[in-house]
């Protein structure tokens, strides 16, 4: 592997470590995989926001449907 690639990988790992995104212990028998772990934590905000928006939208839609059904 070219040294520039190695340096880049180390830099990435270093940044992730500083951002406290790397797993430090594993209680279960299964290796969650560092990459999988990092990705989940990195995407948590986005996934959470999308889920909150979707839930709110569904709840508004349900309320409108309920009102519309009553009028009928």
């Amino acid at each position: 592997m070219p040294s520039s690639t190695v340096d880049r990988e180390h830099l990435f790992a270093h940044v992730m470590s500083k951002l406290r995104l790397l797993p430090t212990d594993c209680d279960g028998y299964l290796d969650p995989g560092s990459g999988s772990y990092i990705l989940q934590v990195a995407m948590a905000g986005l996934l959470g926001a999308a889920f909150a928006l979707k839930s709110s939208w569904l709840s508004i839609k349900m309320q409108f449907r309920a009102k519309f059904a009553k009028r009928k």
Partner: protein
Amino acid sequence: MPSLLSASSPTRTDKRVGGSFRDPCGFVFVRDGRVLRQVNKRYQSDYDQLIKSGLYDALVAEGLLVPHKELGVEEAAAPDAYRVLEPERIELISYPYEWCFSQLREAALTTLRIQKLAFERGMTLKDASAYNIQFRGSRPVFIDTLSFEKYKDGSPWVGYRQFCQHFLAPLALISYVDVRLLSLLRTNIDGIPLDLTAQLLPARTKLKPALLMHLHLHARAQTRNADEGMNQNATPRRKMNALGLRGLFDSLTTAIRGLTWSPQGDWANYYSETNYSDDAFELKRELVSEFLDDARPNSVWDLGANTGVFSRIAAEKGIATTAIDFDPAAVEANYRQCQIEDRHNLLPLVGDLTNPSPAIGWAAEERDTLEDRGPTDLVMALALIHHLAIANNVPLTRTAEYFARLGRHLIIEFVPKQDSQVQRMLRTREDVFDDYTQEGFEAAFETAFVIERQRAVSGSERTLYLMRRRVDAVD
């Protein structure tokens, strides 16, 4: 198969199930034909939480988790037991590489549903293996009672990687590339590697946010951090909040629901393509029904079952039936029909008899061959023999020997060379099958079976046989 001596009785020999060794919380073993699960003391608090939180009852009530009876620890097969469980028996263990697209999709959605219910009760799945799902007819059910653990605030989902490799990757590959890529699950026991998945998927899948995140970016994150598991330091980990986790489960559910697959061509072909007149087809149905009544099996494997028309005759008699066909489209059609009918005793599976499921995994003992999961009471091989003998050059005696290893009885249809389907097969090749005659067929099969009944299917060139395995046919 490894075996161990029982802790409670030194004279009792139990057999550990080959695939049950990774999780130190317990293991599955077989004793006198009963399948038992030992729960070790290290799993005590998680097991208690599973029961006390009401999660076990909720999952069993929804038919999502296999129910079990608790036995005393004196039934333990090894020291350190907290409980011994006897789960409800699954008729035939099947593997993800034997499922059709919709079975794998249903298994994925069941896993996510269970994870969501567990999370609501303060627990989580500590793995997300597709092998934890089995089928009772058309319904998927989770079988690993020890997969639940207490959720620790701030932790991400440990099973995320496995879920993507076992479910999302194969489903996306089938949906966007080719159904035959399901066989990658056979060569990759822990699911399809995500870097390979990302390479095989077309670039347009990067435009789907869920596939971009869970497959493409996931693959890149895995490659970049492949060595980090070895490089753990004392830095406290960043937390994953509950909303983020709910978002993850929801995103995976949306991704799975968004994947579809239908075979090319017309679905209707799979229901109507036969080589029979209506009368002859009806007579064949009646004969199969009669032969089943004569043999009175508890279980049937219908080999070359197509969409399961004849498998249903057995299933409707209350017989636990497995319908195996090499064509994923036929199995897909069969499974969808089973869902509509809510069949509890008919299991469609993908399987190629000329290359059946092998033993795989550690010491080739984690997943069994089809033969090792038998024998079944009765094998059905209807409109199959010419495919084996002529299209695949399998000698009739070899077929007879193999069928004798698979089942105690056999309903088999002989399709002679005059039949239009055989004629079609021979049109493009030399006829080197001198022994392929009705007399040759009977002589070959009588080496392993006794012919109990035979009837010509009038209106066709074919003959149906009911045979019983010779006592000395298998060791």
